[in-house]
């Protein structure tokens, strides 16, 4: 199914929004507004945007920590102000300021963010079971960095989701670097998509810099899941432009990362690629592009201003007490 003009513009706009929010958060960390850390997702926007732009509100989404999940959560509908407010410890944050950086909004189908990497997989299968029992054709999407696909949780989850034909989508955001280690030295094959074969799960490799390609492949998998045909695995090849976390040394195996490699990938920046295509197709003009850029910049500036001005919790002990056990 071909995308409409509006859908293409939406994908492009979302790429720009995520990039502007990422920049806002890098700045917030460097100026001391964020007290924990920030793992910039610059250059990887097309994966989350392509996968999440057309999810239903009642679909479930487990996002990875990269970019603190903004390329998924912002796109699923969580306002930038609420994401920022959580990082700033404000009462208006998505977790009342308790989490610091975990994201959660059950109304948007975002059940939370795991501290242990790979912790989402079995939870997603449980949600897949619930979705199947409920029978409303919801899908459950997990997007995780390639490093987590070594976890036993993933392999157990594939067996269960495939056996029970659950509406699960496993999306590998392969940025090729795990912390300060190139993933090729700790994984036996080039493609993580190969992992689908043993479980009988359809798997594809897709260019993770191309938002339209990601969307197309993910949409096919979503359609399969909604038709009760079971889970899919999609590997999106991308690249981490920034260090593991902002402010940390940018090394690979103890040596500084070569700028040449980064430059190669910067040339395939997902925003630039999408821009080129949409200009060529006549979907957007240069004026439209500037307008979208300005609009996203304004959105994030305002979100940052409002979030920073939001109040801190007046009774943090009471908030923490209520958070521990439900009534």
């Amino acid at each position, binding site marked *: 199914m071909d995308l409409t003009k509006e859908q293409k513009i939406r994908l492009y706009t979302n790429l720009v929004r995520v990039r502007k929010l990422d920049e806002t958060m890098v700045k917030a960390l460097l100026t001391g507004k964020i007290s924990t850390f920030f793992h910039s997702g610059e250059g990887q926007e097309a994966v989350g945007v392509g996968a999440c732009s057309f999810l239903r509100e009642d679909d479930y989404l487990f996002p990875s920590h990269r970019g603190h999940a903004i390329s998924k959560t912002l796109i699923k509908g969580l306002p930038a102000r609420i994401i920022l407010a959580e990082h700033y410890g404000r009462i208006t944050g998505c977790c009342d*300021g308790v989490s610091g950086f975990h994201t959660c909004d059950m109304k948007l189908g975002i059940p939370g963010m795991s*501290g242990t990497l790979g912790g989402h997989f079995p939870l997603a299968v449980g949600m897949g079971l619930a979705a199947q029992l409920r029978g409303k054709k919801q899908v459950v999407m997990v997007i995780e960095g390639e490093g987590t696909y070594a976890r036993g949780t993933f392999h*157990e989850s594939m067996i269960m989701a495939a056996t029970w034909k659950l509406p699960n989508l496993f999306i590998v955001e392969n940025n090729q670097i795990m912390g300060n280690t190139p993933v090729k030295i700790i994984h036996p094959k080039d493609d993580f998509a190969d992992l689908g074969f043993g479980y009988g799960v359809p798997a594809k490799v897709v260019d993770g810099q191309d938002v339209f390609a990601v969307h197309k492949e993910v949409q096919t998998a979503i359609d399969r899941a909604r038709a009760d045909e079971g889970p899919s695995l999609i590997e999106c090849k991308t690249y981490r432009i920034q260090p593991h976390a902002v402010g940390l040394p940018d090394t690979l195996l103890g040596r500084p990362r070569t700028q040449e490699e980064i430059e190669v990938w910067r040339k395939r920046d997902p925003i630039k690629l999408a821009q080129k295509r949409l200009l060529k197709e006549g979907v957007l003009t240069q004026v439209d592009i500037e307008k979208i850029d300005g609009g996203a910049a304004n959105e994030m500036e305002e979100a940052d201003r409002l979030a920073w001005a939001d109040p801190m919790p007046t009774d943090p002990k009471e908030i923490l007490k209520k958070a*521990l*056990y*439900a009534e």
Partner: protein
Amino acid sequence: MREIKFVQAIIEALEEEMTRDETVFIIGLNVQADPILTPVRLVEKFGTKRLREVPIAEPGILGCGVGAALAGYRPIVHSRFVDFFMPAADELFHKAAKWRYIHGGKVTIPVTFLAGIGGYLGGGGPEHSQCLEGYIMHTPGLKLAIPTTPYDLKGLLKTAIRDNNPTVVLYHRILVGAGTSGLVPEEEYTIPFGQADIKREGKDVTVVATGLMVFMTLQVADQLQEKGLDVEVLDPRTLEPLDIETILSSVKKTHRLVIVDEDTLRCSVGAEIGMQFMEKGFDYLDAPIKRVGAANSPIPGGFMECYALPQPQDIADAITEVLGIKESFQVKPLELLKPGRHMGERLGYGKKEN
């Protein structure tokens, strides 16, 4: 009231709650096939989707429970061996226990973890004999019940399933296997968490005991009665929340406290209860508190098991010690341990049940 077996109380609680609420389902190894816990009748009544058979994949199984609970269901995750929860520590101790808290209380996780605990099975060794209530009580965010009678089990399990929090319900494998029975009303009832039960009244010494240790202590208490010692046996029934007030008021009367718990002694439930008591009830005591528990070692297998697990004589000696009695009164081994010549029989398999 009618007398039913321990395992029947589990089945009745599961069947009643699954009938009452269609979001309740069971997931675990052999749940479609366990000859004593899930009779074929349950599978026929509720179908295979609500008795979800699983591969050997504990993180997957426990994680499924947490995930389905996040999505609004009330799963019951079952394992005959609580030991097998350890591969799923991330799912139990992080995801179930901490997920609500770290997300500011924005999600609820109404999952029940139901598991068999304990040794005395003929020597199952260190990974088939543990109780693990110490780890669970240590972890904020979980609730914990250890019922020891069919009445307590049915009432507490039903409460756990309806609770909006991750709840762990531990039953002793011996109590299922030995076919212990007790009085249970025909009509519906539940038991709230956080209410201790005095299983035997006495005026000389309070013994706080959990799980199978309640049975062991009751049999010891009957034998010590013949020597003129009047032992009060108190079963907290739930460890989180813990009814410390009932323990305090009991010791206010007896002035002496022994705590018996089958888990490893170091950093145990007994240590926690004892210290909580010291902070609030030191002045009631006429003697130091005494603890009885498993040795600070793994649990050996086969015929060596009895050297690590608490025995009735250990309980009797602790009681006489806090009473300042120099003499040791000999007591009999636990009668429940007699039936069954091998582990399978002690677990309850090998004879027709229900």
